[in-house]
């Protein structure tokens, strides 16, 4: 009797920490979708972020405090016993390389999420079955960080796996490693956004695709008054093609005539009235750079 060999078993999922950083807390759906995407390509992520897992950069003007925060995070990751820390935030990733691991032993390797998904694109591609609500998507790229992790090639490569989506090449590169760095230099963010809009027009793009959370935060307001233009994050587009449902609440709040009303009383109560009024609302009501 012929014996049919059993199909090869899926290898055990690789167990990683998914270190999503802190300021992406504005976009909880990106953390959620990225986590599901890692799971879908055979990885078992343990998401970790927020101030408890700080890289130290918010306190870089005091080496003792910044170093202490970084050491606490390194010790927490070491205690989690996972081989790899998968990063999201370029600042966290570079801080790990430049200041955290050089001062505290790391019992893990690191990789950026774009590297992980790109390395497993043979598993991701069959999951990208749906067309997305965009025809031509222009990635929003920066000069910085690309020298550490080639995100400017990896992310467009992944977007090109989406059926029917065109991803044009354009030489537009914003200064800095992400838009939050530009926000501190007068005029720099507005100039970068004007250049991005010009690139969108030149390429006939109907979607701008942000790579990092701070770029997404600063760019979503470009949808205002431009009904033919959509601003999405690369994780949003991949998720859409996978059929994963999500809502970009931050974009909805930021572009609403009345952000407080758009957030709604239940969530406002969850955030806390005082915290919302002092810490959230001013950001949501800030005039767009362009």
């Amino acid at each position, binding site marked *: 009797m012929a014996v049919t060999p059993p199909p090869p078993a899926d290898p055990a999922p690789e167990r990683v920490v998914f270190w999503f950083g802190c300021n992406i807390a504005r976009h909880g759906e990106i953390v959620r979708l990225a986590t599901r995407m890692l799971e879908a390509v055979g990885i078992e992520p343990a*998401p970790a972020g927020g101030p408890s897992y700080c890289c130290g950069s918010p306190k870089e003007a005091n*080496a003792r405090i910044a*170093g202490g925060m970084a050491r606490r995070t390194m010790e927490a990751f070491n205690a989690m016993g996972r081989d790899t820390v998968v990063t999201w935030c370029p600042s966290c990733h570079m801080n*790990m390389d430049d200041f955290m691991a050089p001062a505290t*032993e790391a019992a893990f390797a690191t990789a950026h999420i774009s590297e992980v998904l790109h390395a*497993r694109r043979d598993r991701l591609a069959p999951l990208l079955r749906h067309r997305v609500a965009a025809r031509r998507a222009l990635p929003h790229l920066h000069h910085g*960080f690309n*020298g550490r992790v080639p995100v400017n090639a990896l992310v467009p490569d992944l977007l090109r796996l989406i059926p029917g989506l065109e991803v044009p090449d354009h030489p537009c590169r914003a200064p800095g490693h992400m838009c939050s760095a530009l926000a501190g230099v007068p005029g720099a963010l507005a100039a970068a956004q004007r250049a991005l809009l010009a690139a969108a027009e030149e390429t006939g793009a109907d979607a701008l695709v942000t790579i990092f959370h701070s770029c997404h935060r600063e760019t979503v307001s470009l949808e205002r008054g431009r009904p033919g233009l959509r601003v999405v994050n690369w994780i949003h587009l991949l998720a859409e093609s996978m059929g994963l449902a999500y809502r970009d609440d*931050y974009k909805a709040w930021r572009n609403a005539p009345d952000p407080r009303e758009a957030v709604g009383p239940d969530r406002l109560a969850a*955030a806390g009235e005082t915290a919302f009024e002092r810490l959230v609302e001013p950001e949501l009501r800030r005039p767009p750079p362009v």
Partner: protein
Amino acid sequence: MSAARLPPPRAPDLAALIRAESARLAAACTACGACVGACPMVPTLPAVAAAAPETVAAGMRAVLRGEAQAAPAGSVAWIGACTRSGLCTAACPERLDAAYMMRLAGMRLRGALGAGEEGGPPRLPAREDPGWSARVKAFARLTLTEEEQARWL
């Protein structure tokens, strides 16, 4: 997975790392100014654009040598406007990580090692947002479920 192993620590703490790396890179820097010439932020800084790139770069090297108070104002302004493009690193003929040097210089100018060690008060304001932690937590309460907050933060 294409993960990179991290090298073993080379300093006992962050302050010692900043001191050691500053000294190492300052010793290798020739202050040729190629990093200044490649910087995309220079056009936003008229005084820096008008200065000799070698002079601006020498000021950055002075900060790394522990001579922050002696660095020209143009160098301080240049370091303060760094947005981490990394184009300086690609331009360095000595193959130094100029972006890392800028980061170290920025930390020192903002007082990372203290006024006593730098010979005077910080020459750049700290980029600290006093509401950062509370703001992150407030947004997390808006966008994450209670269970996600409990498990992930």
